């Protein structure tokens, strides 16, 4: 059974239709890469899934249960927060909390939401920091960390709430090219550990290597989806061919 089903997502900003009938499914342990040109709707789709934007139309199911229905959704604040916790989101701009150290960033939500007692939460946070290779940076503030290190802390912070699906919004786009590798390695490692993930990315090589499934979105529609080998090596549509060509030239 699919862990996530998204059906017929539609979203407009004013007159501009950003998402036009997006459908896809994701199985537990799968990694989905979403690629496509800027402004095509990738990030909006991810934000709708995470309830940061509201799709006007569409249904979303997690583990078979409807958690969003654009037509009749009168969610209470509490329900919204509960539904959000199915997902974790890693932002392009990291968005760490500057006044907290790395470990404090990670334990903040687990402590406030009483996920476990404080001691357990901290132990878990330190374990996660070790997992992203930053055991020695636990007590450093974000301003003392490089972009790559900040992003790895942000990944640990998202993992601390044990989401069913971990989402990434262009996780390496605001990093210097020479440090994207350290973040991609962490994501790769998570994939090898069967973490269910959705990754919006411009790193085509990485998407091909790590994804089980690729979706190509342009002008708010899924133009092609399928196995990464097919998508990258034998694209069917001209639009995808052109897009991949332009990415290679860049």
């Amino acid at each position, binding site marked *: 059974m699919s862990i996530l089903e998204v059906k017929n997502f539609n979203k407009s900003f004013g007159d501009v239709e950003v998402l036009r009938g997006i459908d896809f499914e994701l199985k537990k342990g799968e990694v989905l890469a979403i690629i496509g040109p800027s402004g095509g709707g990738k990030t909006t789709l991810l934000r709708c899934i995470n309830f940061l934007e509201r799709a006007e139309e569409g249904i979303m199911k997690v583990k078979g249960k409807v958690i969003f229905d654009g037509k009749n959704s009168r969610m209470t604040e509490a329900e919204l927060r509960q539904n*959000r916790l199915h997902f974790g*989101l890693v932002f392009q701009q990291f968005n760490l909390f500057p006044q907290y150290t790395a470990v404090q960033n990670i334990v*903040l939500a687990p402590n406030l*939401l009483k996920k476990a007692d404080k001691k357990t939460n901290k132990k878990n946070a330190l374990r996660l920091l070790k997992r992203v290779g930053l055991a020695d940076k636990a007590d450093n503030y*974000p301003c003392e960390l490089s972009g790559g290190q900040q992003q790895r802390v942000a990944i640990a912070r998202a993992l601390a709430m044990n989401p069913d699906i971990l989402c990434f919004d262009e996780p390496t786009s605001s990093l210097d090219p020479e440090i994207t590798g350290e973040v991609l390695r962490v994501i790769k490692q998570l994939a090898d550990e069967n973490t269910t993930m959705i990754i919006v990315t411009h790193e085509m090589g990485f998407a091909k290597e790590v994804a089980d499934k690729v979706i190509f979105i342009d002008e708010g529609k899924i133009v092609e989806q399928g196995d990464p080998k097919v998508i990258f090596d034998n694209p069917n549509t001209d639009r995808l061919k052109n897009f991949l060509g332009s990415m290679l030239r860049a």
Partner: protein
Amino acid sequence: MFQEVIIELTVGFGKTLELFVLTLIGSVPLGLVIAFGSMSKIKVLKFISRFFVWVMRGTPLMLQLIIVYYGPGLILNQNIWGMGSNGRLIAVLFAFIINYAAYFSEIYRGGIESISEGQYEAGQVLGLTKKQIFTNIVLLQVVKRIIPPMSNEIITLVKDTSLARVIAVYEVIWMGQAFIKSAGIIWPLFMTGAYYLIFTGILTIIIGKIEEKFEYFN
């Protein structure tokens, strides 16, 4: 004579400090209420708050003081502030508090609005409530950012307390000026400046220490 002047001026500066401290105690929290009002989604509340800020910032504090003190008497035909120096003090405090609350509210609003949307979103996707996001994530960042503009206003308030003299509150300038009539000397009035300088000097040092405390993050 010198000793007498020092005693009188020190008593007067005591009143100045009283005005300063009580105004801050009233206006710092009231400013927050007005700030939330001016950012409210409820249009009426937003309009009232912003109108209030416009009036408070758009007219001289001295005029506000006079209107607050004499206005109710003219309209209601009775002195609502109570008799004597105590009544005058209450009227002055009322005028200062609402005036400074208006200025503080704009500083708070600027501070709150300067926090990036990403900080709120990061809290939201972690499942935190709006209140948790404000108190645990946004608030401290706002406090750090508003320290410099708040310091400015607070230093200005030290000197604005001298306006209380227009309705005969016996603060330090009043006391200094009294020597012109009583003893025919003007230097005590000049000397009041030293009191202000020493006090604002101390405040500047304290503010500097507070700013240092917040340097660990940016």
